């Protein structure tokens, strides 16, 4: 794969307890979480985690409380020490850094956003945003200049001299986000960053994050217990259960091919119409007609599996042509050019559109809808029955 892994986690184990190292042999033999707790009083936090995060992606770690997701994210900047295993960030093993190196690593390589914001209540909003830089020892005017810029980016211009307690939850988390962005760290750890916010503010923050990410291309590790949030934000998702990795994959893989019953139970309540895009449901593009004459078009059409085709002229997609109409026209004038009146109007849809938004379009016609990308190329076709299958599949499972 051409994409480079920025973070690599190899065989990571975490056991909480006084004699964690001694019980590792029993963990390797496959003792379960409950057994381990009963026998040794040690809690298994993470078991044999292997994953890699690519540069520039939003990597979502998802699981219920107690699944080890917060434990996992705290290993990346070693707020929690691993019991066994390696964490490679850009080739350096984080677990081997000494105290000074670790401080430097935390200052420049990673920043973090917390569930309950973790702001310093005795400092102003501006000082909070500049906190990472002040720890680095940057001088005041320089760090305040940068902090002011980031505050403006997250939409909190004018709040510089307020204190965190004077702000709403959503605003406080914007301060948290600005603080994380202010250090210019390449990697952003977000620990249930939006979970404490109410739904409307949460979705606003998600939009803002997606918008920022389009500009900044950070590598984001996002922790959540909310599958809708995971599907919305994640380029890839990993699901944890009881400290073990259950499934890792792209959102639609998790949704359409759940690896275990656990994942299946998780995804059954998801509104697929809102979570899936056209791209994931469409069939391969077969019915493309590009000949300029009626005869040529008919010839192309006869090779097609269906009795219709999407007509592309040199100006791009024009509409749908039916075999019937072509045959009729060919009887009189096979060499004539394909005229507009033979092409029926049918709106194309974008591969990135979410299913919910194109349901009305599929209702208006009996033919599958052409999926045309932003370059004007035919990417596939979406047939009503496929759409219904995907959506009703979800419903039967939910019932």
């Amino acid at each position, binding site marked *: 794969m051409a994409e480079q892994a920025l973070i690599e986690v190899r065989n990571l184990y975490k056991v909480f307890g006084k004699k964690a190292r001694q019980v590792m042999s029993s963990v390797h033999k496959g003792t379960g979480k409950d057994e381990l707790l009963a026998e040794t009083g040690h809690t298994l936090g993470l078991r044999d985690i292997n994953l890699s995060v690519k540069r520039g992606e939003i990597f979502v770690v998802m699981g219920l409380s107690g699944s080890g997701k917060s434990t996992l994210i705290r290993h990346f900047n070693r707020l929690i020490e691993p019991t066994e295993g390696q964490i490679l960030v850009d080739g350096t093993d984080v677990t081997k850094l000494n105290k000074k190196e670790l*401080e430097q690593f935390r200052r420049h390589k990673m920043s973090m956003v917390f569930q309950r914001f973790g702001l310093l209540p005795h400092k102003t909003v501006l000082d909070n945003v500049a906190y990472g830089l002040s720890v680095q020892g940057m001088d005041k005017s320089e760090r305040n200049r940068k902090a002011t810029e980031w505050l403006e980016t997250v939409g909190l211009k004018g709040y510089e001299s307020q204190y965190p307690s004077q702000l709403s939850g959503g605003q406080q988390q914007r301060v948290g986000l600005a603080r994380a962005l202010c250090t210019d760290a390449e990697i952003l750890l977000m620990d249930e960053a939006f979970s404490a916010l109410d739904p409307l503010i949460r979705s606003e923050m998600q939009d803002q994050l997606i918008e920022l990410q389009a500009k900044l291309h950070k590598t984001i590790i996002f922790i959540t217990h909310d599958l809708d949030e995971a599907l919305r934000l994640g380029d890839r998702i990993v699901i944890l259960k009881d400290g073990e990795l259950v499934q890792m994959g792209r959102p639609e893989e998790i949704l359409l091919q759940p690896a275990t019953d656990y994942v299946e139970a998780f995804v059954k309540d998801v509104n697929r119409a809102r979570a899936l895009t056209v791209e994931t449901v469409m069939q391969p593009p077969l019915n493309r007609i590009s000949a300029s004459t009626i005869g040529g078009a008919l010839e192309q059409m006869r090779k097609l599996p269906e009795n219709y085709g999407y007509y592309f002229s040199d100006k791009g997609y024009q509409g749908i042509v039916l075999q019937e109409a072509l045959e009729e026209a060919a009887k009189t004038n096979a060499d004539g050019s394909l005229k507009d009146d033979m092409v029926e109007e049918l709106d194309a849809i974008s591969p990135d559109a979410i299913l919910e938004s194109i349901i009305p379009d599929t209702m208006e016609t009996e033919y599958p809808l052409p999926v045309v990308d932003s370059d004007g190329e035919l990417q596939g076709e979406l047939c009503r029955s496929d759409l219904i299958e995907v959506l009703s599949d979800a419903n039967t499972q939910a019932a």
Partner: protein
Amino acid sequence: MSEKSWFTEFPAMERADLVSIRKTMDGAYREFSREYGDIIESLFDPLLSFLIWFEQLLLQSPWLLVLGCLTGLVYLASRSWKLSLSVVVAMSLIGYFGMWDNTMRTLSMITVCTMLAIVLGIPIGIAMARSDRVQKVVTPMLDIMQTMPAFVYLIPVVMLLGIGKIPGLIAVIIYAIPPVIRLTNLGIRLVDKEVLEAATAYGATSTQRLLGVQLPLAMPTIMAGINQTIMMALAMVVIASMIGVKGLGQPVLKSITNQYFTLGLLNGLAIVVLAIIFDRVSQAWANRTQKHLGETAHG
């Protein structure tokens, strides 16, 4: 006979043994104080000269200047005209009833004791907060310091250093330092874990965490400890006067032995006035500077 006495009386050790234990220990300690008393006393000399200097400063300066400075400090700390005016009135009454000099002596003693208690107590509290082991060792010692009757630890102190200001100071500090230690420890331990974690995640060193996060956030609790320490130091004034500490305590002591009710009451009230001034001013200062912390605590 022996069986009966075992049954009705607790089988105590022989009287002679007890006496010999007492004699040995007293003898050893006396020996120790004779041997090292002078050296230990000389260690406290700088402190003694500071105490005397500060007391003389308050006594020798014109009373108007002292009252002016005091009121100025009260206003700076509390930003309240009402409180400052009350201080002027209260101190004038004290002066009018002829207790100005004794009040100055007590004020200087309490100020130095409080400063020392803070300088010693906060680092001990920090050490306790950072290490459970230190906490396990220090906590029972604080319990002893707070429950042991003051007279008991006055004995060895007086044996070692004689009577005077330094033994008085030591007695006051032993009695008054526990709150500031306990509440510094508690305040730091109660600092929001996530805020501290955030500081760590941004690469703060342990000194940066202590000075930038833990101490500022623990400050309301620490201030409550300092406040308690001041109150307890004032409460010790009378006992300290028994070993020769001059000030408001001595007239009270004299009143007890001679049954002078009014003299006792007046001096007692002067101590109360000092206590109220210290308390209100430190509270007002704490509230003013920690408004933002207060809002989150209640919000």
